[in-house]
Structures are given as structure tokens and as C-alpha cells.
């Protein structure tokens, strides 16, 4: 037996997986003409796969049986390769941990080219995490190739979400069950579109940031794109009253802030977001750094209290983006980079976790040398899905990590695929991976039909400061 584990791709050795995950197919990157993989549970259930090209695909039914028998323990993988001279090499076995906390059964993400200006074909897709079933939720080829973005669910609920469409079919599309409603939220004094959304947990409000976004392209070798806001502010949309109102413009006298990436606390009593002083006319984008802020909120009256700095990233020359709060309201995960908001384009962006009960901020062991960015929680708070460019530095892929406590997280694993070679071939990037508790009921044709209907305009109701 060789004294090392086989090289497999994706690297699933030592990862922690839920008891309902789809088969963790992989490729053996070792020389050989023939391979045998034996996957064994502690109680003796065994699954064998033979492969000539190193691609290992498990039968779904047998995989489920193996998982069921491995919950709370490990799956052991024994890999044998038959060499061209007829000898057989056995590698040191590797293991996967299987925990009984299940992950939400679906993941939803946008697929698009990791692009620049031309969007090209893009779609929002839902994928079963328990199998390889995948279907389109919306495709821009049915919407005159317009950009579709910012899908956002109310507490992982597949029947309650929204997304934006730009261009000729523009509007914010609200989905409730199998109904799609096309809304116009850019009204009144808004100078930019409603962009990043967050649903209030009770469902009657959505907070949006309205951002004037600029995109630029770096010459330097380490960076590609830079996306930053010239100005941005938060607005609250009342779903029941169809009214949109600015959350606040000035929080202290004579200071105008850029506010973006809103995120509600699970109890709905606080709004978290990122904020920085609005850049002056001449500014260096590398000096724009966002802090994590929160404001108390009264769901009854729909009013906010005073802002409070939760994490002063500027003080340590860092910038916070994309906060996401655990379902129990205790932890905030966010991306931290040297400056700005476009963490996915910053190689140095890593995920951090703030324990709201102690105020302690921890770097997460799931990070890599490449950019880690957009993250969201499973409905039970035990799984985090995030985007990472660790495979090639260009395209973001969805990774899933088990969460027990900031100091006890599982090694993350990439979303398993039927064809494990797919990530090397795909040029599209995975954007905004969100875990959801079931299958979305609407499809691309529903959006196409909704896009033919006139937009329902929201009512602008001035400021509330």
C-alpha cells in the first residue's frame, strides 16, 4: 500500500458532508489504466465503482444507502489503480465525515460568464443537493437577452423570492408560490435602480440598496475587475402597501454615507448593512472602506432607530461586504477585503465571522488564497454555502461548509456534479448561491409571460428621517 492518499479532483478528502448530499463523484488524478474505488461505511455497507478513465461516479440509490449507514461517522474510500505493467497500487484510504444535520434540498444560483460588459447568455438555476436534478428558474434568452440578477429569498423559502431584470423587460419580479408579479421600484427621487435586496423575515418589507455602480478594468496582473459605488442608499419597500421609502440619507449632521448590502436579523428587529462616507468628487477607490453597521427597526411602524457601528473595518484598513446572519441571529459572516465592495474580484477577499454575543471576529478556516465571497446560511444554520475562485482564480464555484461553531467548521467541498470534470470545462461562473428549502415552482416561461404584462409602479413616499 502506498503511504499517501490518491490525488482526487475535487478534493473531497476529509470533508464533512450532510446525510442527504448527492453522490460525491470525483476524478482520480493518478497514472493507471484501470481504477477501483471502494466506499465503505463503518457498519460494513460497501459500494464499489470501477473506472477506466479515473472518473468515479456513484449510483444514486446505493450512495444514499451508504450515506444512511454512515451518518454520525465516516465513509472510508479505498482506491486501487492497476498500472500499465499489471501491478496494482493501493493508496492510503481517505475519509469523508457524514453528519446528521441535513442541508436544505436545493441550491439556487445564477450562471453567467465571469464578465466584463457583455452579459451574454445567463440564467438562474435551481439544483437539487440530494441528486443531480437541475432546472432553469429564469433564462435571459426568453427576456430579450437582458441582464437578470440579485435573486433573493425570504428565509430560504423557494415560494417567496424576487429578482431584477434590466433592459427592455426591466422590473423587479416578485414570486409568491407560482405567481410572478412585475414591479417598477425605481420611482420618485431614486436616481439609480433598486439593487441588492433583503427580505424582512415576516415578509412585509424588502430593503434595497440603490447603487450608482461603476465598473473598471485593472491593468495589473492580480486584479481583473473593479466595481464600486459612486453613491448608494437604502430604501425600504412595503410589499403590502406598495410603497417605497428611503431608510435614511444622513445619519449624522453633514455626513452622507454610501449604504449597501442590507441584511435583516432573523428576528426582524435589526437591519445590518455596509456603510462608508460617500466619496468626494476626487477620490481614490482604494481608500473606500466599508464598516458593518446596524440599525434597530420597529416592524410595526416600519421605522428605524440610530445607526450603530458593529464592526469598524476601516480602523484595520479593511472593508466589509455581503453580510449574512445565521438563522439563530448570533453570527454574521461577511467578506473582508482591502477596500471597496467587489470582494469577488479581490483575490485577498476572505470570509470572516462575527460573534454578535461576544463581538469577536474570526477568520474562517474555509478560506483559500483566491477570493471567497458571497455566502448564505442553510435554514437550520448548520451549513454555509459560499463562492470561491480557488480553482482557477477566474470563475467562482459554490462551496459548502459544515458549521458547528467558529472554531469548529468542516472542510468545505465543492458542489458535487454528475460529471466531476465539469468545473474544468465550464466557462460560466456561479453567482449568489442560496440554499432553499424546496423546489421553486415557477419557470422561465412564467417570467416570460410576466415580462409581457405592464409593470406595477410602487408609490414613492418621501423620507422618514
Amino acid at each position, binding site marked *: 500500500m502506498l503511504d499517501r492518499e490518491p490525488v482526487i479532483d475535487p478534493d473531497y478528502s476529509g470533508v464533512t458532508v450532510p446525510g442527504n448530499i448527492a453522490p460525491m463523484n470525483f476524478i482520480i488524478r493518478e497514472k493507471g489504466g484501470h481504477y477501483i474505488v471502494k466506499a465503505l461505511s463503518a457498519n460494513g455497507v460497501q459500494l464499489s465503482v470501477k473506472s477506466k478513465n479515473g472518473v468515479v461516479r456513484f449510483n444514486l440509490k446505493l450512495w444514499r444507502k451508504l450515506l444512511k449507514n454512515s451518518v454520525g461517522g465516516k465513509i472510508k474510500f479505498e482506491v486501487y489503480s492497476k498500472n500499465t505493467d499489471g501491478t496494482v497500487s493501493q493508496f492510503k484510504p481517505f475519509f469523508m465525515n457524514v453528519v446528521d444535520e441535513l442541508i436544505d434540498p436545493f441550491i439556487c444560483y445564477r450562471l453567467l*460568464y465571469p*464578465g*466584463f*460588459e*457583455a*452579459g*451574454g447568455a445567463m440564467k438562474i438555476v435551481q439544483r437539487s443537493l440530494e441528486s443531480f436534478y437541475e432546472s*432553469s428558474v429564469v*433564462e435571459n*434568452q*426568453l427576456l*430579450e437577452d437582458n441582464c437578470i440578477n440579485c435573486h433573493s429569498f425570504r428565509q430560504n423559502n423557494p415560494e417567496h423570492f424576487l429578482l431584477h431584470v434590466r433592459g427592455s423587460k426591466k422590473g423587479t419580479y416578485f414570486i409568491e408560490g407560482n405567481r410572478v408579479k412585475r414591479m417598477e421600484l425605481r420611482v420618485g427621487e431614486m436616481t439609480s435602480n433598486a439593487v441588492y435586496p433583503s427580505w424582512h423575515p415576516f415578509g412585509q418589507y424588502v430593503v434595497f440598496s440603490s447603487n450608482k455602480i461603476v465598473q*473598471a*478594468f*485593472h*491593468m*495589473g*496582473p*492580480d*486584479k481583473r475587475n*473593479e466595481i464600486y459605488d459612486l453613491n448608494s442608499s437604502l430604501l425600504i419597500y412595503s410589499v403590502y402597501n406598495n410603497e417605497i421609502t428611503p431608510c435614511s440619507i444622513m445619519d449624522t449632521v453633514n455626513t452622507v454615507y454610501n449604504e449597501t448590502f442590507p441584511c435583516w436579523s432573523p428576528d426582524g428587529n435589526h437591519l445590518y448593512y455596509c456603510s462608508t462616507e460617500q466619496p468626494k468628487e476626487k477620490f481614490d477607490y482604494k481608500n473606500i472602506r466599508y464598516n458593518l453597521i446596524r440599525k434597530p427597526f420597529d416592524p410595526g411602524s416600519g421605522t428605524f432607530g440610530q445607526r450603530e457601528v458593529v464592526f469598524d473595518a476601516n480602523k484595520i484598513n479593511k472593508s466589509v461586504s455581503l453580510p449574512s446572519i445565521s438563522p439563530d441571529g448570533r453570527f454574521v459572516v461577511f467578506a473582508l477585503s482591502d477596500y471597496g465592495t467587489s470582494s469577488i474580484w479581490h483575490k485577498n477577499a476572505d470570509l470572516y465571522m462575527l460573534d454578535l454575543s461576544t463581538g469577536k471576529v474570526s477568520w474562517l478556516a474555509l478560506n483559500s488564497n483566491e477570493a471567497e465571497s458571497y455566502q448564505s446560511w442553510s435554514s437550520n444554520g448548520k451549513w454555509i454555502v459560499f463562492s470561491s475562485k480557488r*480553482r*482557477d*482564480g*477566474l470563475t467562482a464555484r459554490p462551496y459548502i461548509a459544515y458549521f458547528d461553531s467558529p472554531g469548529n467548521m468542516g472542510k468545505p467541498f465543492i458542489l458535487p456534479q454528475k460529471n466531476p470534470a465539469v468545473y*474544468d*470545462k465550464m*466557462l460560466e461562473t456561479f453567482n449568489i448561491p442560496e440554499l432553499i428549502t424546496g423546489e421553486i415552482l415557477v419557470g*422561465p*416561461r412564467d417570467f*416570460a409571460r410576466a415580462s409581457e404584462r405592464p409593470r406595477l409602479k410602487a408609490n414613492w413616499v418621501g423620507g422618514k428621517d
Partner: protein
Amino acid sequence: MIETGGITNRRILVFNNYVAIKWMLYAASVVYYLFFGSGLFFYQENRSLFIFTYDYLQHFLSKPGGLLVYMGNFLTQGYYYNVIGALLISSFPVILISLLMKNFRLLSKSNSRGMHFSIIAACGLFFLQTFYDHFIYHSVGLLLGLLWMYALMSLKKKYQLISFFVLFPAVYYFAGAFSLFYVGLYFSFILAASPKPQRLPGLILLFVNSLAVFIVFKEFVFLQPGDKLLSFPLPVLKFSVFSISFYSFCLYLIFVPHLPEINSMVVSEKRNIKHVTSVSVICLVTIFFITLKFDKEQEDIMQIEKMGFQQKWDAVIEHIEKSPSANLTGQYYYNLALSEKGLLCDKLFFGSQDFKEKSLSLPHFSEYINRAYYFYYCIGLSKAANYLAFESMVINGYQPENLKMLVKTEIIRGNLKIAERFVHLLKQTLNYRNWALKYEKIIRDPSAMYSDSELVEKMELTPGNDFFITTDDNYNMNAMLWGNPNNPKAFEYIIARMLLEKDFKAVVYQVKKMKGMGYNYIPRHIEEAILLYMHEGLELPYLGELTVSNKTLKDFENFQSAFLSDTNFILSEDDTKNELKNTFWYYFYKKEIKDLN
């Protein structure tokens, strides 16, 4: 009997003449593409990269008509070689004749009359195929329609209609909107072949069936908008010569089964011999029209671009200097070739510069996006070249040149994993596999990069600083020089822009930097700017130990005496004076001279 035999012999004679015409048409087409129209092969081959992978096929499986385009792209690989391209494209009109003749026979139409109208159709296809927007899959789509009609008509009458209905969804899936043409064809065949009582029910069923298939496809099967289901992959319906010609041709094919019948009502069989003459005339008229529509400038651009893609920069320069291009793209490639050879400020005005600084770098519109990235690659702004190549790939799909550019620029920037992904695609093509293998070696062994002179040169030109790339190329080049002052290509492009803007004073103030950049002489057009500066009576700034050559001084004297005193010179054909036209001075004074004339 004697008379019958006479008619038969005459028919054979006529038929043989038609066969001869058919092959003459084939020969004419081959000759045309080999000697005049090969630019079409280059254009189309570069816009339809065929990749031998399931993923590539999958892309075409998702929409009706995709498989037809897939098949067309497969055949288009043959366009890589002019000979194969010429033989291939010329075979389509011949196949068209054969298919029409087979159909005519089944419809019991006269052989010679059928041949007559088939040759006219072949002439039409020959004409259509000379348009750059007419791709192989358009020809294949038309031919498949006729093949399908032949297959249907070969069946017993009672099975024909049912077979059409049963196969129609599959045919629609394969050929997409060409099925509309097939419906038209079948409609026409029903009228031509069915007894009168069966015609109306057949036509109603035909209409209902087609509509039902369309609705099922749109609402349940394919995620495609209705207009795409009705138009892809037909040519865009617009008011253009090609569009009108294409759809008129489709109509002709639809009605062609009835033409021999109509013809026989007005022309007797004995006059068939005259048909041969008339068909010959039609062939000649076709050739006349092809000659008439032949766009020499477009063909020229394709030749220049092809040489550019092959990095035959000397050939580009020679070609343009021999036959100057009045086209923006042609002048852009000329400037690009000069820069690649380090001659931009030596020979800029040896070619036409009608578009001033616009011919130095092209705008980023979709029309130019496939060409714009070479400029950035040339000056070492590999990031911008990479960005535009990626945009091109997103907008236009995989093309050999955008993938090649992505490979090279990702390697230069050290992103080997990403470069490998594009190499992997090119490796699975017929014509670019060897190219990909070369770069795969570099990816596997990055030290091999340093033995590739092209990559080394571009890496050396890459600036060390970071800045935002903008649409203002003057800003980009200045920002590059800030990070890497030893970039002669960016420097000369900046100077070229100044010269084209006639800002000779600014040029003179740049000369002092040149010695430090490794220049041991002043390029000719910069010398010309210096002399113009002196001619204006201005005090010459420090030139950094470089001096103007005696030859240029003498040339300026000649220019002064020839141009500035002789305002009628522009009409002169004097060789010595013509040489002086290739100068910045002439460019500077050209407008004034032209105005005076």
C-alpha cells in the same frame, strides 16, 4: 418511328448539353472561389469553430435548427483550405440539380425542361453562395428540404402525408425555421402531385400540423422565444440584396415543380434546343451578376486580415503599399503590421491614413471587437486584449482567433489554469490542434515560455503598474509608458497619433526620451516632424543626442521646392515627387494642396 427516334436523339443531345452546362457551372464556381472569392472561406471559417466534444454538440441540441448549424460548422472546417473550400461550396449547386431532377422525375415532369429549371436554380444558389452572410448551413438547409421531398414522394401516395406529419417534429428540430420552407415545398408538391379532391384536406392538415408542432415546441419543449423558433437559422429578414435574393430563391424552389408544366404550355418540345441556349445565357448572366456584386475591397480586407492572423506582417505591409486600402480595417492592419515590425514611425505615411488616429485602434463595437484586440496585444496591453477577446467570445461564441488571444494573454499574465481551459477547446478542433499543442507544452512547462520570442516580447512590453483601462487609448498608452518607459510600441503609437493629429510640436518634445529607450536613430516621420518644426521658425528643444539624417534634410529641400512652390503637383505622376508623398509633410499639407487643386 423515324420522327420519334429523332426526338429521342434530340432529347439525348439536349440532355447531354445540360449535363455539360452543369459541370461547366461547377468548374466556373471552383475557379471563382480559387482565384477571386476565397475571402469568404476565411471569413466563415473564422466565425464557426467546430469543436469535437459533447459539450459543443450540447450547445446546438437545445434549440431547433441547432443541429443544422452544427452540421454546417462541421463542413465549414473544410474552408480552412481554399481548394477544399472551393470544391465543397461548388458541389452544392450540382447537388441541387441532381435533387431537383430526381424530384422532377417523380412528378413525371419532362427531363429536359426539368433540367432547364434545375440549372437556373443552381445558378441562383451559385449567386447566393457568393454572399458572405450565406453560410454552408443555409445551402444544406435548402438541399435537405429537396432531399426530404424526394424521400416523401418516393413513398406510396397513401403514406406520403402521414410520413410528413410524423416526421415533421423531428425535421423541425433538426432544421429549425427551414421547416417553414419545407412546408412551402410540400404544399407545392401536394398541388403538383395530388389529385384535385385530396388537395384541400391535405393543405388544411399541413397547416394544422405545422401550427401544432410550433405551439408544442414553444410552450413545452424548447426555451426559445417564438420569433427565434420562426427565424433561426434562416438569414435575418431585412431589406438587403442578400436577404431579398435568399427569400426569392426559396420561393423559386417552392414553385419550381410547377414551372415545367407552365413552360410546356407555351413552349413546344421541339424548341428544347433553344432552351440550352437560354440556359447558357442564364449561366452567363449569373456570372455577370457575380462579377457585378464582387466587392474587391472586402476581398482585399480578408486577404490582409488572413495575413495578419498568420502574422505575415511583411506581406501585409507589401500588400498595402502596392494597393493602398481605403478601408478603416485595412489601414488599421497596415499600422498594426508596421508596429509589429517596429516601423510605425518610419513608414506610417507610406500607406493611406484617411481616418487619422481612428485607424490606430478600432472602437470596441461588436463589428470591430474581433479585430480591436490585436492593437492592445501588439503594444503589450495584454489585459485589454484579453478583456476584448473574452467579450468577443461571449458575444460571438468560440472563434479560433478569440480563443487564441485568450490563450496567449492568459499565459502572459501567468494564469495558466485558465489558459489551459481555452487550449483544451482548441485542442479538440481539426485545424487548430497543432497550435494548441504548442501552447499546451508551455502550460505544462512554463519555462518553455521564455523560448517563445512572441510571448517574451509581449511580456517585456507589459507595464509593471496597475491602472484602469479606459476607452481612451491615448490615456492607456501614456499610463503604460508610466509603468514601463521602455515600450517602443506604445511610444510609437503615441507619436503616430500626434502625427496623425498634425501635432508636430508635441512630437518634437518626445524625441529627447528616445535615446534612453534604445533608439540610435530618429525614425523618418519623426525627423520630418522636426524639420517641419524648424521650418516654422521655432526653437528646437533638446533632442537627446539624436540628429536628423542628411537624407531627410535633402528630402525636405526637395519637398519644399516641389510641393510648397508647385500647387499643381498633386496631379503630377512624377515618380520622384510621388516618393515625397509618403511623408508627414505631404500628409500635413495635403488638405491645403487638395484645396488648391
